[in-house]
């Protein structure tokens, strides 16, 4: 089974940027800063762990895509999964680590009888990213159908194996 070199390189790059570097930087940041962020309602350790996990999943998806031909159904499925995963990353970034908030971030802290809440409303961009993801999925399907029809035109007599 052949693996595209580009996929390996890209997967390694994503792994280094999103997983290895954040995990390394976490060990470099002084504990006092981490505690200070936590007291302000912002869990930096949790955020870094989530970024590292996202990087790992993303690099696996990219690597897997490199195993399959563009005409295979698996490639199409992986393309759609990675597109949806990018959307989750956008939700994650807009929600400052909380993708379930869909772009509405609330950071609260309380000390000495004073409570402070900060709310970022970036839901518009979460909606726009959802529309873009929908269009990208349609594009992936159209590209797959085009690649498949091209193969059929080249080899009309041979049966196509689209299982892998």
């Amino acid at each position, binding site marked *: 089974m052949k693996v595209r070199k580009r996929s390996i390189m890209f997967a390694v790059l994503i792994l280094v940027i999103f997983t290895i570097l954040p995990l390394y930087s976490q060990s470099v940041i002084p504990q006092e800063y981490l505690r200070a962020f936590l007291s302000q309602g912002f869990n930096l350790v949790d955020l870094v762990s989530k970024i590292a996990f996202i990087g790992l999943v993303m690099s696996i998806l990219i690597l897997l895509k490199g195993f399959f031909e563009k005409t295979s159904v698996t490639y199409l499925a992986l393309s759609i999964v990675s597109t949806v995963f990018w959307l989750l990353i956008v939700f994650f970034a807009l929600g400052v680590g909380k993708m379930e908030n869909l772009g509405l971030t609330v950071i609260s802290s309380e000390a000495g009888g004073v409570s402070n809440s900060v709310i970022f409303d*970036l839901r518009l961009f979460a909606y726009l990213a959802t529309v873009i993801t929908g269009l990208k999925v349609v594009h992936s399907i159209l590209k797959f159908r085009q690649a498949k029809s091209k193969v059929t035109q080249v080899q009309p007599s041979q049966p196509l194996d689209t299982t892998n």
Partner: protein
Amino acid sequence: MKNMNRIKALRLGIIGFEVLTIALCLLSIYTLFNALSTAISGGTMNLNLNKDESTGEWRFVLNGNPKNTGFLGVTLFFEVAILDLSGQDIARNSTSVYIPAGGANQFSLSLNIPPDVVPGGNLEEAEGYFELRFSVRTLGDLVGFTNILRIGGEAAP
């Protein structure tokens, strides 16, 4: 061939849409932070708290002339409230002001605090909460930042 052009057009459309979304996101965030830093900078706001000795009523007045040095127009919203210990409103007032890109606009917000809320006449000894809500919205009020500050005794149930 026709199909190929359609796919290409869709791809270009998606790229254009992505670029536009990223540009709008960056512009909005820049404008929000710009408006925030201008609003809280010295000299932009003037806060007064005076007591009317004849009635015993306290008067909170917030005047401002914030500027908007961002690329998009912003709407600033200010709200002040006095709440009792159960979190119920005693007095509340709000105002909003639109500031075009590169412009400035004045606003004034006042709140009268009834004397029965301040039994001893000393505001620091009064029971209850003081709440200040400040919000900046841009891009047709679709994107925003809100800060709610509550100062007081025990948390409301």
